[in-house]
């Protein structure tokens, strides 16, 4: 049986770990509130954008534009949004799994990384990394999203990549975050969109559809990336909050167990001492 001192030392160490996890939980709770609010404010813009683009595709069925057609290149660019910091449960590895365990062939994938954790893993497993925007995930701005989108579209325009994907974590609610992989380019009409009355009105385009698409699609992609970044940040803090919450309660459990062990050991030591004294006294008399 471990000595009293050992148990005491162990309990102290678990206690200070618990203090750290508790503090981290509080910090990420506050950050989550802020990130959640930002993510929710974007939803309006994003929804309107999505409706417009889907409406355009539905109405202008057979327009021919490079953004809508798959190109010859088999290369796939994946914009991968993870976090810069760890200790967030499965948050980062879930996004990584989307890419490593999906239908992608390693040699076809090019990574545009947002977030150190994902980038480091992909670099270690010898994926090709074409861009690293890790610094901006701490506080993503629309400008940043625009730059990432521009780089990706340039690669697409040059024919270096045939498809562009976005891997991020969808923030469903505080406790549920879903790692998601969506295809940005070529743009595909979503079959599941319900046609509303509004969608059936014939729509004019000024300039013509092709030109309008040329201008709208980059904006659309930028808004998807921006939304993805904000949702990922919210998910990251949510995931960290949960991870730290369970770490704190696990620490509590261990402390309870160790306290019990310590008390037993102490009682055992007292009993033994008493027995020895009594035995000694009897021996003298």
């Amino acid at each position: 049986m471990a000595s009293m001192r050992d148990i005491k030392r162990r309990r102290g160490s678990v206690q200070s770990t618990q203090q750290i996890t508790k503090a981290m939980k509080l910090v990420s709770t506050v950050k989550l509130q802020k990130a959640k609010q930002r993510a929710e404010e974007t939803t309006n813009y994003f929804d309107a954008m999505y409706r417009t683009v889907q409406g355009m595709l539905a109405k202008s069925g057979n327009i021919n534009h490079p953004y809508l057609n798959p190109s010859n290149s088999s290369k796939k660019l994946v914009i991968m949004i993870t976090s810069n910091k760890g200790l967030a449960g499965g948050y980062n590895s879930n996004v990584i799994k989307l890419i490593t365990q999906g239908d992608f062939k390693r040699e076809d994938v090019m990574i545009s990384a947002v977030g150190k954790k994902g980038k480091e893993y992909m670099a270690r497993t010898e994926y090709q990394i074409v861009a690293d925007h890790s610094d901006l995930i701490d506080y993503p701005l629309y400008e940043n999203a625009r730059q990432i989108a521009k780089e990706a579209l340039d690669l697409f325009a040059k024919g270096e990549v045939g498809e562009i994907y976005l891997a991020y974590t969808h923030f469903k609610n505080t406790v549920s975050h879903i790692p998601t992989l969506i295809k940005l380019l070529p743009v595909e009409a979503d079959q599941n969109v319900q046609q509303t009355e509004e969608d059936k009105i014939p729509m004019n385009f000024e300039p013509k559809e092709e030109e309008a698409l040329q201008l709208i699609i980059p904006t659309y992609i930028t808004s998807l990336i921006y939304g993805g970044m904000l949702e990922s940040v919210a998910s990251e803090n949510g995931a960290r909050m949960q991870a730290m919450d369970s770490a704190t309660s696990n620490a509590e459990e261990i402390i309870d167990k160790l306290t019990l062990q310590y008390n037993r050991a102490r009682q055992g030591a007292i009993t033994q001492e008493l027995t020895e004294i009594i035995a000694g006294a009897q021996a003298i008399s």
Partner: protein
Amino acid sequence: MAEDRNFDLEIITPDRVFYKGQASMVEFNTTEGEIGVYKDHIPTTVIIKPGVLTITSEEKKVAALHSGFATILQDKVTILAEIIEWAAEIDEERAKASKERAENRIRQGHEETDMARAETSLLRAMARIKSIRY
């Protein structure tokens, strides 16, 4: 005409809902020229160029609208603006300085200058100044 001549106007930016309400007319600049939209406009999607945006309802509101696009329906106009600011929020000195900067860049015409970018920033600065003076 007792009929209601107002339509719903919604201006959304990536970070917030910029304006939501009723308006009788909205004017802004597009790639095809400046347009003014009343109720019952033919459904159209237009691309925005930097310019002044004016909303006419009970009172007149002026903003500088820089990029994005607008979906016009008969009884509703939705403007998805990437960048937009109320005239009252604009710093005139800064706008003037950036106008001069852009003009110089275009005039000197160095090879490494990105002409398209310089022109856009000139247009933006001009839209800002115009919307203050409006």
